[in-house]
């Protein structure tokens, strides 16, 4: 066994057993030999799981209860065999999700607090060239709940499945009937599964199983989900951004906010200069007082938090705390460092109503229904995802704009920018008219001038 670490890959592709709750997708797994005959499994590429599951890029899981045999058979070639006890049987590998790094060296299964239990298929030996990759399916069980319309639950025991998509469809078809729950009429009805509609995970997810964005399994009434105040308008048209360190996304920051009472919030903001960022007033003024602290992360994706900065000075529209009007919901953060030198910053602008109505826009931020957030006081417990949605404005008013672009809690303060020029014209507030319109504070000439006057931008 060579001590030097070799990037290799393992794993066969079939999911052969285990309870499935939530979802899974195709991910590329690479393994790196570490000390003590253990393999650090690096999930490097979430292909479709990102829609559903907290399988993030660059996350590392450490399998501690597996027997790992890695043998270098020839130069640049490593045979890796990973088996767990009872290879032929269904077995759960309990892997810490949030603190995978901490369990390296631990013996046996260890599930830490705040962890998700992930069910991995027992694996078989694969012989690969160094650097070669292999796809396999990963199922996820636990509390990292799926927030998409899909909730799949069923026993997965068809060993003939050869692809994740096939497995996904199989799970849908064999688990149980689906029930559609109509939030308005409060009626439940069985719906017929059309396999062709579920030919792929992406397609099924994007379309929404019943075309209305809500479908549930028998036994899962779905009524709880109807309590969601319709931040998603119609079907969910958000798409994930993984190229978070490219333009125009890099200057968009994830805000981890702590208020005066040590409650935590997630929000979004964006750089407008080297060390100033714009956000919503309610991201810097919580409840009845200014935020106690705000950590900002640019280029954050999964548990890779990118460039970090801390808020040094906060400012907000003084009338917002009293009026709570969308038009006044803007604030700024002066940072204690200059992340803009690395990440760049967004251009902001104001224009006429006519021009505003004519253009297409994108709202982009960190929605709370994606990723995995925790009220723990450190960022190490957060797993974040950037998402965006695009469309026209549905209303243009003197101080604010409305739109049907889908957003969720966590996107307060996100930039609403021209999809062609990337110039920001509004700051996302939230829901204006549930089920019909979201809205944001418009960048007016007055606000623009004010920001220049205080030196926030040039």
């Amino acid at each position, binding site marked *: 066994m060579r001590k030097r670490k070799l990037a290799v890959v393992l794993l066969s592709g079939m999911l052969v057993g285990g309870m499935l709750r939530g979802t899974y997708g195709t991910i590329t797994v690479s393994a790196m030999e570490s000390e003590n005959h253990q393999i650090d499994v690096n999930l490097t590429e979430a292909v479709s799981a990102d829609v559903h599951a907290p399988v993030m890029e660059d996350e590392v899981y450490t399998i501690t209860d597996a027997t790992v045999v890695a043998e270098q058979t020839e130069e640049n070639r490593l045979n890796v065999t990973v088996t767990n006890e009872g290879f032929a049987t269904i077995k759960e590998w309990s892997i810490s999700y949030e603190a995978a790094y901490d369990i390296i060296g631990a013996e046996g299964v260890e599930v830490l607090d705040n962890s998700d239990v992930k069910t991995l298929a027992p694996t078989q030996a694969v012989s690969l060239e160094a650097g070669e990759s292999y796809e396999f399916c990963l199922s996820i069980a636990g509390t990292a709940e799926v927030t998409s319309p899909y909730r799949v639950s069923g026993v997965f025991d068809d060993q003939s499945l050869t692809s994740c998509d096939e497995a996904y469809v199989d799970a849908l078809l064999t688990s149980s009937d689906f029930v559609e729950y109509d939030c308005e009429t409060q009626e439940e009805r069985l719906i017929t599964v059309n396999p062709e509609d579920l030919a792929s995970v992406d397609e099924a997810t994007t379309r929404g199983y019943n075309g209305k964005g809500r479908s549930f399994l028998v036994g899962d009434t779905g009524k709880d989900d109807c309590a969601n105040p319709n931040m998603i308008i119609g079907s969910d048209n958000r798409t994930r951004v993984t190229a978070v360190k490219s333009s125009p996304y890099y200057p968009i920051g994830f805000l981890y906010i702590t208020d005066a009472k040590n409650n935590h919030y997630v929000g979004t903001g964006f750089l407008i200069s080297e060390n100033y960022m714009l956000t919503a007033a309610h991201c810097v003024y919580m409840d009845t007082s200014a935020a106690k602290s705000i950590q900002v992360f640019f280029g954050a994706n999964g548990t890779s938090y990118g460039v970090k900065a801390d808020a040094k000075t906060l400012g907000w529209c003084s009338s917002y705390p009293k009026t709570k009007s969308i038009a006044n919901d803007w604030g700024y953060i002066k940072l204690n460092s200059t992340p803009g030198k690395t990440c760049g910053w967004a251009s902001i602008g104001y224009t006429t109503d006519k021009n505003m109505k004519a253009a297409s826009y994108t709202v982009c931020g960190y929605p709370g229904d994606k990723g995995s957030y925790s009220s723990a006081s450190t960022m190490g417990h957060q797993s974040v995802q950037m998402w965006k949605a695009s469309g026209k404005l549905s209303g243009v008013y003197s101080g604010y704009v409305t739109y049907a672009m889908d957003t969720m*809690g966590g996107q307060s303060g996100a930039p609403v920018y021209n999809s062609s020029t990337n110039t920001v014209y509004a700051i996302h507030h939230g829901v204006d008219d549930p089920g019909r319109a979201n809205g944001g504070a418009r960048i007016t000439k007055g606000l623009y001038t004010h920001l220049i006057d205080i030196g926030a931008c040039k």
Partner: protein
Amino acid sequence: MSKQIVIGIAIVVVAIAGVFGIRYVRDQRNQNAFSMEGYVKSVDVESQRILICYDQELVNDETYMGDCYIPVEKKTKFSDGKDITSIHPGDYVIVEYTGTIQETFPSEITETVSITIE
């Protein structure tokens, strides 16, 4: 004399219009109210607000931030004459609200009309 009568009538008319006008506005507001439902995760009497989860399973998950803060205002109506001290973690509440929803996570509604505890 007739001038005083006219002024008096005008005052009465304005007063009546005002009363009915306010009632009309209130009715309109209630008609435009929306509702959300969820399980109470925490109650902050000092800050006069509650935090709810849409998913019952997350109510007792101490690491979960919660889904939406519900401010309890003076004008907020409670079912059966209850108040914020009647609300406890785990209660299922139906919240009628107007205004907007601030989309931090957890989010927060800006104006609570009524809270019904089930």
